[in-house]
């Protein structure tokens, strides 16, 4: 069953790449057909990614998110889902270029890695872990979306490009991404803490990943409040979205790759 996963992943990568090309062509030629075709390719790529996720889930018997390949793949899938949600809800069109390009980088870094599903260690064999991971990466995906929207906001405030969404819509969508990301990440922290309590006998660990996860939560909790302060709206909020995603990236990848942690997932 898993023999199909690599061709499917390459196909998804190809579809996302083609979508990026079409979105760029749309920026140049300004033909609605181009972004429609681009979005169709994104939907197709997402369908393939979803198929791979289902295949891997069925083969493993659990949601396989226990190594870097699996988590990056799941993060990429969640990011595509988040973009589709915003596209269908707000028709942000060309904003997709930033998000899908980010997704392309994420998926591209997955492809050279070993796709083998490692055996599940008993500590991870609990629905609490699955919930912790699902909400963690869907939260991260919304923060990544907010990062893209923040970059787009700063770009648009300088270029005033007619094909990009107006600043009011970008601000609204960015606030929604931060709010939903914070809600999902809160759920991630709740399930993770309950799991840590029953697995290790304490619900907060002083390992560097645990500390930085709390910092991510605190940072975005602050952002949920900052939107009510006039001086932080607009550019300030966009900059905070970019900085916040830096904190997320360090927590997810930086700690695992640059430092060491005794967190179960590095």
């Amino acid at each position, binding site marked *: 069953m898993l023999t199909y996963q690599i061709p499917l992943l390459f196909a998804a990568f190809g579809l996302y790449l083609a979508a990026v090309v079409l979105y760029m062509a749309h920026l140049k030629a300004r033909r609605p057909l181009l972004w429609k075709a681009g979005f169709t390719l994104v939907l197709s790529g997402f369908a393939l990614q979803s198929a791979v996720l289902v295949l891997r889930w069925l083969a493993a018997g659990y949601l396989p998110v226990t190594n870097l390949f699996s988590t990056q793949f799941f993060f990429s899938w969640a990011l595509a889902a988040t973009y589709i949600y915003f596209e269908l809800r707000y028709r942000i069109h060309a904003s997709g270029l930033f998000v899908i390009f980010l997704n392309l980088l994420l998926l591209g870094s997955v492809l050279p890695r070993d796709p083998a599903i490692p*055996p599940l*260690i*008993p*500590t991870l*064999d*609990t629905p*609490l872990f699955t919930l912790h991971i699902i909400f963690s990466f869907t939260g991260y995906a919304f923060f990544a979306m907010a990062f893209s929207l923040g970059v787009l906001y700063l770009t648009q405030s300088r270029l005033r490009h007619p094909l990009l969404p107006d600043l009011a819509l970008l601000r609204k969508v960015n*606030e*929604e991404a931060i*709010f*939903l990301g914070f*809600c999902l990440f*809160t*759920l991630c922290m*709740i399930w993770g*803490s*309950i*799991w840590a*309590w*029953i*697995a*290790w*006998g*304490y*619900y*907060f*660990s*002083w*390992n*560097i990943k645990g*500390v*930085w996860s*709390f*910092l991510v939560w*605190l*940072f975005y*909790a*602050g952002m949920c*409040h*900052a*939107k*009510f*302060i*006039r001086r932080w*709206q607009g550019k300030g909020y966009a900059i905070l979205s970019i900085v916040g995603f830096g904190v997320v990236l360090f927590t997810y990848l930086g700690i695992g790759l640059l*430092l*060491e942690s005794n967190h179960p997932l590095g």
Partner: protein
Amino acid sequence: MNTRSLPRATWRLLCSLKLAIVLASAATLLTMGGSLVMHYNPDVFGDMDTMVLGEWLDTRGTLTPGLTWWLNGAGTFIVLLGINTLCCFIDWARNFRARWRKSGEYLIHLGFVLVLVAYIWGSLGGFRSTDNRLLVGEEMAIDEMPGFSLRLEAFEPVFNDSGRPMDMRSTIALLKEGETVARQVVKTNSPLTYKGLIVVPGSFGRVAEGFNFFLSGRGRIALTPGTTVPLDDGGRLRVVRFLPDAVRRSDDQPVPASRRLGNPAIELEVVRPDIAPWRGWYVLREGLPFPLIAAGVRLWPTDPVYRSYSVLTINRDPGAPLALVGSLAMLAGVLFAMGSFYYKRARGDRPDIT
């Protein structure tokens, strides 16, 4: 500012949104830097999870104040943020009829305060104890909880097909004044819990507690402390002690060298009719002592007798139930806030600008 407006101004400050952002930012920046100090000084911070924060700050934290001051600083900011959050929640509750649509957001506030209080409570009133070795059948008093003890009733290691240890199942009974108050098969993700006490598996092992021998005329027998073997002439052989790894002292007496199996020695007593009893050591590598040969005892050591033990982590966090209530409040708050968010967006509401 007159004295009548001072309490109002103080209350406004305590409920201030800007104060919340300042405190959260200060705590975040301080902890970011501190976490790197923590990471690069594992000799100072490496054992933080083995004890509650209050105990750690009192013991390890005071030894290197230059490296740990940020914890006190960040802790102070977080506590102040908690007070600010509580004041916001009280302010909202006082105006509930006008602001009930914000219930989700303020349930998250309440949850945060409860979890924070629970953590402080657990850090000051709890304890953590690791590496508690308990042999099957053994009972161990919990020093921090007078009157309570744990008994390991059974133990079963779980291995995968390639023989790799995967899990451990320890049947643990919690006793209060000798009466069982809780019993649980403790395994990974399945702890024993009782009023803030939690017992989770750590690891397991086995110790040699005796040796199997081939005894001429009787076949294979296991000799462990307390075993008595009747002899043909009406006498008896009794095992007094067993040392898995013995070394001879200057007076030639074997004494324990380690708990691992190395140079096993067994102290025996032979009681025979009309002959004075003999008691002495049989160091297995040195051969049978003459009094045993004289008594007609022929022993050939075959293999050790092992007994399993479970290594348990025993923690108590009196704030844990409150933390659970706090997290449930947050969970309810998140669900309500998301529902309310979509409802407000559908109506075209925009956030307030202050």
